[in-house]
């Protein structure tokens, strides 16, 4: 790979010159028109030279600073200020199962990759939005087919999708939007209506005017987003732009996963989208184990305890749900608390700069005791400082704190400051 390297026999001067010319040509070629994006990634960055085997036999990058900065960009981009979000979401997931979904550019096929990632997405969605509902629509053979009704049970969606995999015919975006709009019509006004289309096809084969369907979605305040697997399609971009959604194209399986999971946290919401209201909710008590009861949702005899609706005393076997008898929303307080971190996010950490006072640097991460960079014999990478409590953290804890824990361990170990979220 390095033609400019020293020749062992010591070649004549003109040969060296020629080598240098060739080298220049090669470089121009690498940087220029012929190199594809993925080739450039390998040719320019030479990522394999940056690897080193550690004590445990795992490959580690020699200097991970740049890589870590790249990965931090994502949650730095997230807004830190408190913004209003649509916490109670009604989302229709439109999965394209047309002929294009059988393409094998994703392995083993687009359809299989989408099915696996949609499962991840559904679990993450209900983890982050326990009060929300989701339904699945499949686009296949020119028609839209409702796989599941809007409901709050992740498992039923996943089984329904897995049971009906199989690519056929054309995709019709208009039919999908119309069916999604029909599904979202009866939901209460405070709910946020959303459609996420996972699209493999580059065409849409519609029975009527798709622009009318888009206008209807806009009128009903349905936020439509599209995640594409192939290439950008004009009508999808228009749909996302007009309805306030996002349109993204996945370049790889990992990228598709990231793009899908971007739809898991509740999106920022405008006040006029969904007027605020007080929702009547019940907080059922759990019956002690061992008492036999028949649950209202499955009509099964259960011995392992059930929840009792405080209004009509019907028994349900899982929360959150809607009472099957009096249709009140049944909820437990942890479910509500699970959503609070969206409202009180941890401020992003700042990267510590070597120029700022280097006296008395902690050698280890406050949270996990791993060695930090910046001191003699320390690890490579970035060192992060919380702007509120000024403790130092490692890169991994930064990711944990902002992506899964949603608490700053340092800030939790000091008296509450006035700018902290209320408890």
């Amino acid at each position: 790979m390095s033609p400019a390297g020293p020749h062992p026999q010591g070649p004549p001067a003109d040969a060296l010159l020629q080598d240098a010319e060739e080298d220049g040509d090669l470089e121009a070629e690498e940087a220029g028109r012929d190199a594809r994006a993925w080739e450039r990634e390998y040719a320019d960055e030479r990522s394999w030279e940056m690897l080193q085997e550690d004590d445990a036999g795992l490959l580690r990058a020699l200097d991970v600073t740049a890589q870590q900065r790249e990965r931090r960009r994502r949650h730095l981009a997230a807004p830190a200020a408190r913004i209003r979000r649509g916490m109670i979401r009604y989302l229709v997931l439109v999965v394209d199962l047309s002929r294009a979904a059988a393409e094998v550019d994703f392995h083993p096929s687009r359809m299989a990759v989408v099915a696996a990632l949609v499962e991840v997405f559904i679990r993450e969605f209900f983890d982050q939005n326990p009060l929300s509902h989701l339904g699945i629509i499949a686009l296949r053979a020119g028609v839209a087919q409702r796989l599941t009704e809007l409901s709050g049970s992740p498992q039923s969606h996943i089984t329904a999708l897995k049971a009906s995999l199989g690519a056929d015919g054309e995709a019709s975006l208009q039919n999908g939007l119309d069916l999604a709009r029909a599904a979202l019509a009866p939901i209460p006004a405070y709910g946020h209506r959303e459609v996420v289309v996972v699209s493999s096809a580059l065409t849409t084969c519609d029975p009527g005017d798709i622009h009318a369907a888009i206008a209807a979605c806009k009128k009903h305040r349905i936020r439509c987003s599209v995640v594409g697997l192939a290439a950008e399609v004009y009508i999808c971009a228009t749909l996302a732009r007009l309805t306030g959604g996002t349109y993204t194209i996945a370049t790889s399986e990992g990228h598709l996963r990231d793009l899908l999971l971007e739809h898991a946290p509740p999106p920022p919401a405008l006040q006029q989208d969904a007027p605020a209201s007080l929702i009547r909710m019940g907080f059922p008590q759990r019956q002690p184990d061992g008492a036999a009861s028949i649950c209202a949702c499955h009509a099964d005899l259960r011995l392992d305890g059930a929840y009792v609706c405080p209004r009509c005393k019907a028994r349900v076997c899982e929360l959150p749900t809607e009472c099957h008898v009096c249709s009140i929303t049944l909820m437990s307080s942890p479910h509500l608390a699970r959503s609070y971190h969206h409202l009180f996010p941890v401020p992003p950490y700042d990267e510590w700069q070597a120029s700022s006072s280097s006296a008395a640097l902690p050698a280890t991460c406050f949270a996990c005791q791993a060695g930090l960079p910046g001191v003699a014999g320390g690890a490579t990478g970035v060192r992060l400082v919380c702007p509120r409590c000024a403790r130092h953290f490692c890169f991994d804890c930064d990711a944990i704190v902002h992506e899964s824990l949603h608490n700053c361990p340092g800030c939790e170990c000091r008296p509450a400051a006035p700018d902290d979220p209320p408890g």
Partner: protein
Amino acid sequence: MAQGTVPSRTDDVSLMVITLEINPYIWDKHGMGAAFSIQAMVEQMIIFVNSYLLLHHQNQVAIITAGTEGCAYIFDSAASKQGPSNAQPAATNGSANGVSEEGERGIGSILASRIQRVVSEAEQKWKDGGSGGEPNRTTYLSGALSMALCYVQRCLRGPKPQPQPRMLCIHGSPDAPQQYIATMNAMFSAQKLQVPIDVCMIGGQDSAFLQQAAHLTGGLYQKPPRPEALLQYLLMVPAMDLHSRQFLLAPRPAGVDFRASCFCHKKTIDLGFVCSVCLSIFCQFSRECSTCGAVYTMARPTPAAGAKRKEPEA
């Protein structure tokens, strides 16, 4: 995020992260009332940690103290095993103060001296603070749980086979309402990582936070009627590894209170109203949300007229 699913972890090597409450208010009350001093607790903890480490030669333990002055690592068995390569002289950072200098022999004495030092510092500050201003009486439980989870995840990033992690929370003080969100966040994170939180309440009252933590994460909650026999309880219940728990009958709490308390009167309610914008809970209808200021545009909501009755799910 989901670093290790259960099969990738070995089932007999455990990692236990212990959060130990050293709030002088609790221990003071105990010292007078229940004849259980903090010194006696430290002695019992040393026996417990030593016997836990004897269960398997690869067992790991880390101890975090939670007090009124913050939380700190006082013991980390992984650092002592790896030797000086991982040992950074950290004289400046109180939390990591030479965690790794000891060998296998001296766990007892080192643990005792560190706990004593932290406790006496806390007591000193408590006495100093008594003269001026309102001293802080709250234990930073959420901070200790957050640090413990970061530590667990660090071990799960390490070489395979990974130990089965679990957390043990030895706690005494009542719940602090201002830590509700942070404690719940830590709990959900533990649930996602499949890290059970075992709880041993040595205080006078049950903790609703920790009851929920144990319930959600699949841990064991116990409130010993005689705290001075702490060691017996610890050896009987939280010392069980996760694999053995499938075959043993562990004490089960009578019930977990999942009811919410309203933000307006702090009453525990089973029917209430929830703001659709910020999910605050209220016990009575109002025109405006007192938390987020949203003005409710609709009249008193009734159960949606168009709401369909659901089909029984298969």
